[in-house]
């Protein structure tokens, strides 16, 4: 009985994340258009795109690995779905989740990047392989600062490795963002999240104008639609993750709903502004940025957190 109810909750979260992702992605395109002094597409444009793609023909490249090619988008979607499931489990249910679910969440966060890389290699396209190799490199670079930021969270909350405990700790005392180390860790996590989302300045795996969409290049029809849904859901889920880790989570009673939405909106706006005010960087610049200054600041944040600042 418990299994059935959990499964129902999972599909409910998938549904919510899908529509949240559609709205987030539409809002992003609208904001980008306004920042470029354009009118922009309607808010539900991502939804039209996805419905259209599901009706198109699915082409599989000759000589590529058919099974991996078709399974990769589904793998990514399942990964994002499970990340959203654990997050909402901690947000909506008191004492939800289990001890150590933050590590499970970190593992599932790798799924989208891995699925994109697999897709690139399976499509047997030189540009796709190039995009896949860049995705793997970017994953390696971005992961180190992100793990340091998560380490700061765990140290500051006195060893809480359960998402609901992290929320509970922050609602008892102040949110982590207010403290010095928490503030630094928040910005580090934000940049790493931008890389995991695959957004400008770190959009070098797909790089529309350079390698024509990289791993997505050979995709058409339903698999491409699944990839787009994955990206939209990731865009909706990442601000929630950052709010949960650093800004005291979200509450759903009375006026707090407004504050929860406001928190989500602020993190989302930072993503969109970062995207619209930066050029794409090269892979060696990405390495220098993530393993240089960002990892350095991450180490400082960890030391500060150990000192209790």
């Amino acid at each position, binding site marked *: 009985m418990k299994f059935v109810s959990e499964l129902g909750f999972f599909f409910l979260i998938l549904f919510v994340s899908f529509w949240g992702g559609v709205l987030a992605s539409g809002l992003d395109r609208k904001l980008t258009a306004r920042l470029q002094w354009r009118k922009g*597409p309607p808010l539900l*444009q991502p939804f*039209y795109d996805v*419905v*259209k793609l599901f009706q198109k023909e699915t082409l599989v490249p000759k000589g590529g690995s058919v099974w991996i090619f078709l399974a990769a988008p589904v793998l990514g979607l399942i990964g994002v779905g499970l990340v959203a499931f654990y997050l909402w489990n901690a947000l909506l249910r008191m004492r939800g989740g289990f001890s150590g679910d933050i590590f499970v969440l970190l593992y599932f966060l790798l799924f989208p990047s891995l699925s994109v890389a697999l897709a690139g290699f399976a499509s047997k396209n030189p540009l796709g392989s190039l995009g896949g190799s860049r995705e793997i490199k970017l994953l390696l670079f971005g992961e180190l600062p992100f793990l340091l930021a998560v380490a700061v969270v765990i140290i500051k909350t006195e060893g809480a490795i359960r998402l609901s405990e992290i929320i509970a700790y922050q609602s008892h005392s102040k949110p982590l963002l207010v403290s010095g180390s928490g503030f630094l860790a928040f910005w580090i996590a934000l940049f790493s999240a931008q890389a995991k989302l695959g957004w400008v300045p770190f959009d070098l795996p797909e790089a*529309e104008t350079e390698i024509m*969409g990289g791993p997505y290049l050979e995709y058409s029809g339903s698999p491409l639609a699944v990839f787009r849904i994955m990206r939209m859901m990731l865009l909706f889920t990442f601000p929630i993750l950052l709010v949960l880790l650093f800004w005291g989570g979200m509450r759903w009673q009375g006026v707090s709903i407004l504050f929860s939405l406001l928190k989500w909106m602020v993190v989302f706006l930072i993503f969109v502004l970062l995207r619209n005010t930066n050029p794409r960087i090269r892979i060696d610049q990405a390495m220098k940025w993530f393993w240089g200054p960002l990892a350095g600041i991450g180490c400082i944040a960890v030391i500060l957190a150990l000192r209790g600042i």
Partner: protein
Amino acid sequence: MTIGKKTFTRSLWVYHLGTGSCNNCDIEILDCLTPRFDIERFGMVLVGSPRHADVLLVTGNMTLKNIPRVKRVYEQMAKPGWVVAIGTCSLDHGIFRESYVAPQKVCEILPVDVYVPGCPPKPEAIILGMAQLISKIQKQS
């Protein structure tokens, strides 16, 4: 008209294919994406791969060397798809009518749905052509 079919009219992705064009039509196509004309209002975006495309924008007078490549790109496009011929060259070769390198017109090789005349056509004309394509798709379904 079902909701599924209706989405085609609201999100046409465009792949731009130059077949020996003098580059003027291509510049005018890019003008459609600028803030002044902003064709993304209708959900149209320029994509980098024919696999993602719904519409093939063909410019140029279809030189001999380009014919097999154009056929291949059309076959790579995921169906259903449509073809829009942009510029006088792709209608009837324009000023290159006497040219020995272009024996066939675009319409003899691809099933063209909409023609946009002009040398080069204005962005307004291209937007009008796309609007005509949308109404044609609406009638088809």
